[in-house]
């Protein structure tokens, strides 16, 4: 059923008793053309575009838990395409364009809110770097605007402009950036893929991968063996763990990243703001809670929780930027596991095994990439060639020396 004002009205008159589940809950079939491991945002988006754009409909998405239980439901919901590098910018801008039409495309309210993303700068050198990034964005046709201190004061009067150590001199704004309701993205893609015939199989953990020489023949799961023509991994966070099933070692470490939400406040921050002198980013949800986060914990982890040291660090960075946060009480915090690649950029490529495809290494920037990642991965799966915006995300770029070090940080700051 298509959602519309009419369907809402009709169901209201029938006392909302006739709503159907948004997707089926099928048992796995013995064989699929494509199996996607991982029912997170990227896996579901891949299935959606594979079935919608590329006409591949005999597809299963295998999810270990329930939909939205992984990083798609654990991030700070920020979307942006303010990237500097040639290999990155067109991809993230493609993603931004998909975000802009997404709700109409999959007929689901994902609450896409282009409220703007502002990166603060605190020194002359940082202003130069941001100017360069802004210019690179504009050369790629992406909107970017350099705000000086006075312009910024009008928009965000509550920042600590006179901070003794990190005075705020201005910011780089991408007005088209913003936030999206993260779990609605998972639901929307799941519903859309399901309507195209994709089987979304929850509570189905892949426990082994079957091969015949260099060809994958299928997977072993907690719900039985399933065979496939092509196998796609979209399990960022657990990539090394799954890759180990086919004896692959990856240029990836798994790290925990925390996010926080405060008690509900009256409208306070109407954009996304990031601290330039530390790692801190904040926005305000429609419910009023401040949603914010900081840096990864700094040690390998598969535990979906963080430590107090990082809570303190995030709170300090937040306080340095917005002193008014000192009175705000934190309501909840949670952790997700990031695939930290060695250059800080994702990997989307074929592997040494003929019909195994890899999508991972999204570091802590996977959410904004969700639609483009799905589209480009579907393109790769369907055509065996990378999408034109995703040609830089090759698996072998580390060995060839073509690193994509947008920020100059990978899993650890000393890698560059």
């Amino acid at each position, binding site marked *: 059923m298509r959602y519309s004002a009419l369907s809402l009205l009709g169901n209201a008159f029938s006392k909302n008793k006739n709503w159907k589940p948004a997707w089926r809950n099928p048992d796995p079939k013995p064989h699929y053309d494509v199996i996607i491991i991982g029912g997170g945002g990227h896996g579901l988006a891949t299935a959606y575009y594979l079935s919608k754009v590329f006409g591949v409909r005999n597809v299963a998405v295998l999810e270990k838990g329930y939909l939205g239980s992984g990083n798609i439901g654990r991030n700070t919901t920020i979307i942006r395409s303010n990237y500097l590098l040639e290999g990155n910018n067109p991809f993230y801008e493609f993603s931004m364009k998909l975000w802009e039409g997404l709700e109409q495309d999959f007929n689901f309210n994902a609450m896409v809110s282009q409220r703007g993303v502002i990166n603060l700068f605190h020194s002359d050198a940082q202003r130069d770097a941001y100017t360069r990034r802004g210019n690179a964005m504009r050369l790629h046709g992406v909107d970017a605007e350099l705000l000086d201190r006075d312009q910024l004061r009008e928009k965000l009067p509550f920042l600590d402009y006179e901070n003794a150590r990190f005075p705020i001199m201005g910011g780089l704004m991408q007005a088209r950036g913003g936030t999206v309701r993260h779990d609605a993205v998972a639901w929307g893609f799941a519903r859309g893929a399901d309507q195209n015939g994709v089987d979304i199989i929850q509570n189905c953990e892949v426990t082994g991968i079957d091969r015949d020489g260099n060809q994958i023949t299928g997977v072993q799961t907690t719900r039985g063996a399933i065979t496939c023509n092509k196998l796609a991994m979209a399990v960022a966070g*657990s990539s*090394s*763990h799954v890759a*180990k099933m086919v004896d692959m*070692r*990856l*240029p*990836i*470490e*798994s790290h925990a990243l925390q996010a926080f939400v405060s008690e509900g406040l009256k409208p306070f921050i109407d954009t996304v703001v990031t601290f330039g002198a530390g790692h801190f980013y904040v926005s305000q949800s429609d419910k009023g809670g401040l949603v914010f986060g900081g840096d990864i914990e*700094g*040690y*390998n*982890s*598969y*535990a979906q929780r963080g*430590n107090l*040291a990082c809570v303190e660090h995030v709170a300090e960075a937040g306080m340095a930027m917005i002193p008014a946060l000192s009175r705000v009480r934190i309501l909840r915090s949670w952790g997700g596991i990031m695939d930290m690649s*060695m250059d800080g950029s994702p990997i989307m490529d074929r592997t040494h095994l003929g019909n195994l495809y890899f999508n991972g290494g999204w570091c802590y920037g996977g959410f904004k990439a969700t639609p483009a990642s799905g589209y480009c991965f579907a393109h790769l799966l369907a055509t065996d060639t990378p999408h034109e915006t995703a040609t830089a995300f090759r698996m072998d770029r*580390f*060995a060839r020396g073509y690193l994509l070090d947008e920020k100059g940080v990978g*899993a*650890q700051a000393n890698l560059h």
Partner: protein
Amino acid sequence: MSSLVKCPHCGLRPREEFTIRGEVAAPRPSAGADEATWFDHVYLRDNPRGEHREYWHHAGGCRRWLVLSRNTLTHETSDVVDASTLKTEGAR
């Protein structure tokens, strides 16, 4: 992560005194090793879910480098030794 970690020199100490450096990898290859060996050493990781041998620095205590096992799922630590006791097999 447990808030107390047993240092072989200082005894039970708060976790905040330690800095985690990362996995105990194979020794650095020789300068003349081929590119594949260097690629493997510099970029690839085992990144296990479970027991992980790693270097810790007791920065807020004895300032010794330690080697210990930590479970990356539960964060339980065990087998703490001073890094100098680690047998190095020499460059490949």
